[in-house]
């Protein structure tokens, strides 16, 4: 049905997909997995026509589709869902799906579109009532809608992009079953990209694993999960156990810095954290690992006060900060480097750093702190008059960390410092984290990149679906079956 050979995609000098070949047979479910930035979405974008391949061929039902416009590919029978659902909020659920059917089938028949919409909605279990509003849908509902839209285009091949992100466990199972039903009942072939391996492994027929744009493993789920190269990619094997042991020795007798007890938190009716307990001692580096949507970012936001916990206590050096507004928590010595860096893109590097020293106490030490940051990141000094938004991803991460360090914090919260960066840069970022550690700062770091993070932290927590599942030293975590299961689904 689909035959991909020698697929390459380069962005400038960076090769996102390097010579990947694979085939998908009629009626098969192929799982496509790999860590962040391994090239999964790039492949999807090439299959659906959003990106044109640099070289290679994509044969779909015998026809070459590489480089065709997206609407021609969709009309040809390849449907796709998006990681982040984008429904038309003003339209009803039915209209959303019917619209996809109307244009996606390429036939522009209203009757056919409505028929397809009814079928698709019934399939995913959404109301076929014509007036039901999109606003009532939760995360799971939106994912279903996304799926229904793709189905309404009557695809022969369905590309499902991270259909599980943001769902709880029961919803994940439900979604996985649904994909299986779609294949079984409608005979639609599926390629499914996912971060979370556990559920995926149970449903797919075959798995293909990508890392750094290359295919490193392919086969039956059970075989792939046991492949040493896959384990290496996901968990790493060369954690410096000796270093960890030394740190453990240092750790004892250190005073407690951050202490979370029974913390519950969420957004509106959606609860993201359940009874989280977590300790960080002075001088320690602690990691929090876990798949996408496990609640890692929420955890960071709760600590820095951006979200109020609904229950539980958070103490910074013995002071309860649950009721303290975020802008005052900073003065207690907590600096938060947010996910995706969140620099002020149209301010210079200097001005960004200046904002980090906004607090009254920090302003007096502005020049000293600037020197400390420039010592740590000489690159920032070179770029100080450049607009932050025009720098490379790695430089931006430096700037974000530098900005947080301007307030002279005791505890640095790092939220996914490697997210969205090229593999080489990821390496650099973890080097940075090591240097910060060495400067004696206490660090709490949240990461998906288990292999890398376990190399730089003393201890780590595994969080899944908002609950702490395991904790221990880096070495213990590496050996842990719970961690393996969370990432590999075995």
């Amino acid at each position, binding site marked *: 049905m689909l035959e991909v050979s020698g697929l390459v995609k380069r962005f400038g000098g960076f090769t996102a997909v390097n010579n990947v070949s694979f085939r998908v047979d009629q009626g098969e479910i192929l799982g496509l997995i790999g860590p962040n930035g391994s090239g999964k979405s790039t492949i999807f974008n090439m299959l659906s026509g959003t990106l044109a391949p640099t070289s290679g061929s994509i044969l779909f039902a015998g026809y070459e589709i590489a480089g065709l416009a997206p609407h021609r590919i969709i009309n040809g029978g390849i449907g796709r869902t998006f990681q982040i659902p984008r429904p038309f909020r003003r339209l009803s659920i039915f209209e959303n799906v019917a619209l996809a059917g109307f244009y996606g089938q390429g036939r522009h028949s209203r009757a056919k579109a409505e028929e397809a919409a009814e079928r698709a909605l019934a399939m995913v279990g959404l109301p076929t009532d014509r007036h039901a509003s999109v606003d009532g849908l939760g995360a799971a509902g939106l994912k279903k809608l996304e799926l229904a839209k793709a189905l309404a285009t009557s695809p022969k091949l369905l590309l499902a992009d991270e259909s599980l992100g943001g769902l709880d466990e029961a919803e994940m199972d439900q979604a996985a079953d649904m994909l299986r039903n779609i294949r079984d009942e409608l005979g639609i072939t599926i390629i499914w990209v996912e971060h979370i391996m556990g559920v995926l492994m149970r449903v797919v027929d075959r798995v293909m694993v990508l890392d750094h744009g290359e295919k490193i493993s392919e086969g039956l789920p059970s075989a792939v999960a046991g492949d040493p190269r896959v384990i290496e990619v996901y968990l790493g094997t060369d954690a410096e156990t000796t270093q960890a042991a030394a740190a453990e020795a240092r750790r004892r007798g250190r005073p407690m810095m951050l202490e979370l007890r029974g913390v519950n938190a969420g957004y509106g009716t959606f609860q993201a954290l359940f009874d989280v307990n977590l300790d960080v001692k002075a001088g320690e580096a602690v990691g929090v690992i876990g798949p996408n949507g496990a609640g890692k970012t929420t955890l960071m936001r709760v600590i820095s006060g951006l979200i109020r916990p609904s229950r539980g206590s958070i103490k910074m050096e013995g002071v309860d900060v649950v009721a303290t507004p975020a802008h005052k928590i*900073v003065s207690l010595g907590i600096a938060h480097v947010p996910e995706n860096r969140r620099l002020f893109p149209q*301010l210079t590097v200097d001005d960004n750093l200046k904002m980090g020293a*906004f607090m009254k106490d920090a302003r007096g030490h502005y020049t000293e702190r600037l020197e400390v940051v420039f010592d740590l990141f000489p690159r920032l000094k070179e770029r100080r008059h450049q607009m932050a938004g025009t720098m490379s991803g790695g430089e931006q991460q430096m700037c974000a960390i530098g900005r947080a360090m301007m307030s002279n914090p005791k505890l640095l919260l790092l939220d996914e410092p490697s997210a969205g960066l090229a593999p080489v840069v990821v390496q650099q970022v973890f080097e940075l984290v090591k240097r910060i550690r060495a400067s004696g700062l206490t660090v709490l770091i949240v990461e998906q990149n288990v292999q890398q993070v376990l190399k730089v932290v003393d201890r780590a927590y595994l969080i899944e679906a908002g609950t702490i599942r395991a904790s221990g030293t880096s070495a213990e975590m590496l050996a842990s079956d719970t961690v393996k299961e969370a990432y590999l689904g075995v």
Partner: protein
Amino acid sequence: MGMQAFLDIFDIYLLEAVINGILLGGVLALLALGLNLIFGVIDVTWICYAELVMIGMYAMYFMVQYYGVSYFVSAPLTILLVAVLGAALHYLVIAPLLTAPPINQLLATGGVLFVLQSFATVAFGIDFRNLGIRLPVLAFGDMNFSYARLLSFVAALVGMVAVYLFMTRTFTGTAIRAISQDRQIMALMGVDTKRIYLITSALGGALAGLAACLLVLQYDVHPFVGLSFGPITFLICVLGGLGNFIGGFIAAFLFAEIISLGGLFSDLEWGYVLAFAFFIVMMFIRPAGLLARRR
């Protein structure tokens, strides 16, 4: 013949019109300065901005005419008063609506516009009031220029430089620029966003107050004086790019020159029509403002 035609167009009056355009540009630039600040930072449109200027003009009028306070004492008091008004406007009207759709904020400040107009009508009556200060005139040969306009021009320049220095050199100024780019994470820098908004609003009000002090030298005060300035001030801010001070400055002078030269070569009415037509064309060519970077 050619020479004569040339002299018919490029006479001393053309020069006078050009310079008058620049001076009018000063007035408009001064008005746009404060509005631009609010526009750019809080992302909220103060439809009632010109009405704040109107209240400031009344304050000047009453202090100078009724209570005999000197102009130079009244001016800082007026600036302070309008600054407080600006902060109050934010605190009472904008802040509760910050997360509401923009149209609600627009309607709310539009409501304030009518409230202020009606307030002025009830409190001060519908009479046109004139400060009665007549500044001398500057003459260069056949050309004459208004002192009052020169003063607003200089004030606009000084105000612009002062705002620029404040925005780039101080922590608070930098925070004002930063907050317009990412409101949510400001708290992570230890910045109390509410306070910054309040400061920005007061600053915007203060600039409206400054404009009032200078406009009152050139125009009569009445409850509807805002109608003469409000719309054109908005167009200038939009043309210059919302929140772009230098863009707003340039747009003010462009507009003023089009009005002035268009008025000289054709009917005065056509000067305004041309200015608006120019605005519409520019909105197609550069929808994000004169100085916006192309994306």
